């Protein structure tokens, strides 16, 4: 009897799993507060006109320190922040973090890697990730009877 019940519910469970995955793809880790608990760097992403736009705060880095890679629908930001140590100095406060970081985001569609534009200015990374042609929605023509 238990086996029978599980079978009937299977499509519902599948729908639930699909919905969970849809959200997980974007909200990989829930950020708890303003801070980079979701992974460094924190990002803001919005979609407009067949492209996703991403902004991240990366103070102290130039484009040489950051590596951006695109694989299918995954976009990775990685790099290393180094802060020069002053020998013989006393540190009163050390709040800024250093080290290597890497973060991968998954978009719901494939990215056209050749048309990606990125800029790093005043510590803000701005990236335009256009949709791959194959991922764009296509109107289906209805054949008249």
């Amino acid at each position, binding site marked *: 009897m238990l086996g029978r019940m599980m079978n009937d519910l299977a499509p519902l469970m599948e729908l639930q799993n699909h919905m969970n995955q849809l959200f997980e793809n974007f909200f990989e880790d829930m950020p708890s507060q*303003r801070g980079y608990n979701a992974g460094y760097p924190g990002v803001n992403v*919005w979609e407009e006109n067949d492209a996703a736009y991403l902004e991240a*705060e990366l*103070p102290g880095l130039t484009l040489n320190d950051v590596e951006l890679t695109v694989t299918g629908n995954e976009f990775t930001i990685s790099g290393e922040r180094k802060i020069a140590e*002053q020998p013989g100095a*006393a*540190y009163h406060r050390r709040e800024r973090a250093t080290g290597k970081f890497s973060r991968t985001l998954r978009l719901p569609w494939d990215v056209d890697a050749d048309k990606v534009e990125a800029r790093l200015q*005043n510590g*803000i990374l701005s990236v335009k990730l256009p949709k791959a042609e194959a991922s764009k929605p296509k109107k289906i023509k209805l054949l008249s009877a």
Partner: protein
Amino acid sequence: MNNNNAIERQESQAVQKVEPTQPAAIYTPLVDIVETNDAFTFQADMPGANAQDIDVTYENNVLTIQAKVQPQHRDNYLLQEYGTGHYYRQFSLNTPVDPDAIKADFRDGVLELQVPKAATAKTRKIQIRAAS
């Protein structure tokens, strides 16, 4: 307490230290403070600020760093992990410094301040004359 008193309400709003031109959150930048014998170095992470909108003031032993940043508002974020807004932070310095010689440099979103100590505040070695 209720702010039914219109004058109380106005006064409590007037005490704000930073007056933004539009309602925006104010963020505290992360800062490293390093002290050498000659100077203090402040390094503040302020991504998104522009050099011309940054204000550094020194008054009565208090060093204030602020930056006005245009906050970005969008209706259609897919993911929003950080907000944008102004920066503000104050430091109380116990050591006398030379305010005219403060140097500020803003690069890649990091503000670096070199604050030289006043001549009187630097440690000086005292020569000991040995009795002969």
